[in-house]
């Protein structure tokens, strides 16, 4: 019986070879085997008649209103990453400028260096308190580098969190 069931299953899956088909035809000459085959066909016949159940009324309308609402929220939310990205970018640029201005670069003749020096002087003039506390240039230089590393690390953490969240939502 096992071999018969196996062959009929292959036949029903249209996965049967010619030699197996011949073997099946031989087996079906037996009345009991043939009845077994008709029972398989009956299973197929009945299963194919099963119809779909109707989804709850107004399902589409409810879902679409939810989607439209989500879309509006997404548009509102989309400003947040832009603001955060801008904030991080500005901070990183400021720290790089600070590092360059504090370093002993031999760039006195460059206009950029003068511009940076002027910019730093202007920025620092607004914070005399900080300037008073941190007088050591080496300390400022290294803390700036650390700040830069931290900012970059924070930025990548934020980005990876964002992509992970997106993956979760898509799952």
């Amino acid at each position, binding site marked *: 019986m096992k071999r018969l*069931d*196996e062959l009929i*299953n292959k036949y*029903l*899956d249209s996965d049967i070879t010619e030699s197996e088909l011949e073997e099946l035809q031989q087996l079906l000459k037996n009345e009991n085997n043939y*009845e*077994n085959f*008709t*029972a*398989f*066909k*009956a*299973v*197929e*016949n*009945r*299963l*194919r*008649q*099963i*119809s*779909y*159940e*109707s*989804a*709850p009324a107004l*399902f*589409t309308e*409810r*879902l*679409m209103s*939810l*989607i*439209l609402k*989500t*879309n509006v929220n997404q548009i509102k939310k989309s400003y947040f990453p832009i603001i955060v990205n801008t904030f991080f970018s500005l901070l990183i640029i400021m720290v790089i400028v600070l590092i360059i201005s504090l370093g002993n670069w031999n760039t006195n003749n460059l206009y950029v260096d003068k511009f940076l020096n002027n910019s730093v002087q202007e920025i620092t003039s607004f914070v005399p308190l900080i300037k008073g506390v941190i007088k050591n240039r080496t300390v400022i230089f290294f803390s700036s580098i650390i700040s830069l590393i931290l900012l970059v690390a924070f930025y990548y953490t934020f980005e990876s969190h964002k992509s992970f969240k997106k993956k979760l*939502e*898509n*799952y």
Partner: protein
Amino acid sequence: MKNLSDNDIIESIKKGNVSDFSLLVDRYKDRTFSLLKRMLKNEMDAEEVMQDSFLKVYKSLSSFRGDSKFSTWLYKISYNSALTFLSSKKRKEEQDFISIDENFDLVKLDNEIYSTTENVNQYILKLIDKLPIKNAIVLILFYVDGFSINEISNVMGISLVNTKVLLHRSRIALKDLLLKHNYHKEIL
């Protein structure tokens, strides 16, 4: 609109016509609901999971490349959402996830159903409802939805060989029960 293919509708949605998503929902809501109700055995849960599944589909539509059929993709998401729902609700009864060959008492089930049904149609429908989830779903996807074995294996996340084994065992189990009650003669 009814002549538009799934891919045409998806392209339109991607271009910004969000309301076209309702065409896909209308096209697939009944069959998705039937699948989920069969898995969750409850209309409200089925509706909740269906809504969640369609939302997931909508959100991920931009990543859908059309390598597989939309229906296969939707069913895969719905099937996985239903499994997650069952786990989270702690309704993951052992019986739901075993297959016919793993301690599933088909004889006891048959006795219960046979004594409470009046005809072969009712009998088969009740039997399908009470079968272990995987066995029922593989039969429904193959015969009702017309999925190929390859597509079923994709939806259920199991290998081709396992899909075939599951389908064959489910078929044989139903065939044996029809033979036992001589129901096959009534059907054909």
